[in-house]
């Protein structure tokens, strides 16, 4: 990595301006913002309500919408996280990336700014969707809101870093979209966002445990379940009898994010 010329202050300023550009893009594209918010809401209200009729009391966790709620929060932050990867690929194709690459700053700073931007947008959108907790029969107390927001922030940053890593590894828009489209659905299904993972065949259990989203969904599910007195701590959602602690899950998610960010920055900094 080439050294930045102006030390930490200059690098921070670069991170900030890249972050700021992401914010401006989102705020100037309200239509797209509304659409990305609409998808998780539809999941919760349409799919949730529909399946609630089919599974009246899912896995002893009450209404299916209550079960689905943490998964919907994950889907909410997933969209803007993917948006960051897409914007890196787009900047490369549109040429703007070169304007950044030739600047006298570390490429890691550029990437950090991008990821921070994506994570900020994702967390804010997550908080907006969190307001729908009532429709999922989750009473939203200030304590729950704070816990979920903090977890959303960690999960968002990790997901953003993961898509950024994917984005710097491919050079074409189509490859990126096809690759993500291929990976995302199975990852979502295996995460326990849609159905409980207990009692699955061993080969599926292994895949579930390997899926980083499993830890993210569980992180978001815990405070929700812990908050509902009538619901046991939803162990049925977790694939195995062994259940890591919240701290361990947070650590796994954060470590994944940091690793992805470092690898992406390395790859990004390599001269061609």
């Amino acid at each position, binding site marked *: 990595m080439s*050294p930045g010329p102006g030390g930490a202050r200059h690098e921070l300023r*670069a991170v900030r*301006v890249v972050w700021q550009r992401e914010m401006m893009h989102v705020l100037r594209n309200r239509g797209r913002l509304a659409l990305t918010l609409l998808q998780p809401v539809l999941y919760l209200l349409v799919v949730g309500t529909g399946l609630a009729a089919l599974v009246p009391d899912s896995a002893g966790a009450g209404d299916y919408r209550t079960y689905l709620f943490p998964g919907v929060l994950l889907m909410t932050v997933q969209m803007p996280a993917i948006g960051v990867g897409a914007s890196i690929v787009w900047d490369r194709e*549109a040429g703007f990336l070169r*304007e950044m690459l*030739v600047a006298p700053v570390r490429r890691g700073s550029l990437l950090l700014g991008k990821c921070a931007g994506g994570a900020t947008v994702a967390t804010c959108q997550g908080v907006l969707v969190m307001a729908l907790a009532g429709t999922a029969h989750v009473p939203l107390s200030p304590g729950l809101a704070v816990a979920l927001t903090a977890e959303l922030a960690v999960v968002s940053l990790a997901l953003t870093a993961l898509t950024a890593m994917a984005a710097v590894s491919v050079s074409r828009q189509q490859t990126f979209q096809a690759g993500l489209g291929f990976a995302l659905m199975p990852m979502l299904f295996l995460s326990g966002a849609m159905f409980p993972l207990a009692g699955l065949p061993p080969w599926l259990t292994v895949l579930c445990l390997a899926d980083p989203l499993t830890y993210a969904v569980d992180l978001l599910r815990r405070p929700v379940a812990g908050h509902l007195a009538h619901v046991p701590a939803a162990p049925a959602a977790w694939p195995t009898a062994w259940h890591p602690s919240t701290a361990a899950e947070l650590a796994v998610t954060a470590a994944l994010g940091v690793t992805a960010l470092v690898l992406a920055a390395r790859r990004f900094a390599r*001269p061609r």
Partner: protein
Amino acid sequence: MSGEARFTDLSVRDAPGAAGAGLTAPSVSVLARGLRKSYPGVEAVRGVDLTVRAGETFGFLGPNGAGKSTTIAMLCTLARPTAGRATVAGADVTADPAAVRRRIGLVFQDLTVDGDLTAAENLRFHADLYGLPHRTARRRVAEMLDLVGLHGRRHSLVRTFSGGMKRRLEIARGLLHAPRVLFLDEPTVGLDPQTRAQVWDHLHRVRQQRAVTLFLTTHHLEEAEHCDRIAVIDDGRIVTEGTPAALKAAIGTDRVVLHTTDDAAARTALGERFGLAARRDPEGLLLHVPDGAAFVPVLCARLGVPVLSVTVTRPSLDDVFLHCTGRTIRDADGTR
């Protein structure tokens, strides 16, 4: 080191670059020796030597795919040379890329402004990336927008701009941090002739008002005429280098087209009295002489056949390219 101090360093343009002191004098802004770049299966640049003096407008002329963009990418530290050395604005491109990046500006072949930001926001983004002190940044953003005639549109979203306006904004952006060398890769590609002339007007203003070296690539021969010096590159190698006038003079001959009342008799007379071989051509009689302008009066006086018209054409850069590579630049573009 504070941002303020750094920027002051930058604005002292003729200060000798400490990093490259061994290889280059302060009056040389771009120096390349034996620069090569190979990609798997392709040798894009095969040993390029360049010397560009400070303050000069240097044109890098060649057909598409000749290695122009790859050479620029190496000089701008966006690509690592496979072999050879280069210093730009006194810093070595491989040993000290960060110093090179601080001292150069870049206008890319394709448009790289952000359409979702306004003109002023695009420039402020650049100022932050280059660590310009805030007050300096504000002043220079206004100055540069003025220089390229976009001050009135500074708050408009760039996506509403025409191609020529975006180009001008990129030139303003490239100059914002007061670089010593501004690289322009095909600055007028894709623009109509009128807009192209307009971009050149602004580049001429830049040359007059800023002590900056302009290094540009083009495959338009007319554009090379604007340069102080040009180098012709073909197939990854420099085939000739010099001022446009000198290169044309090196061809040695002007083209003369002659119309007379009796072209057959005139042709014989040219052979007998001047020792010149003329060719019959649909345009008239075609011949080549070292100094066309001086030849015309002598011709009219001594030919003995009434002359209807004489046209003298100085050699063009197209002739230079043809002379050096054996084909015209348009043919060279077509074969790739």
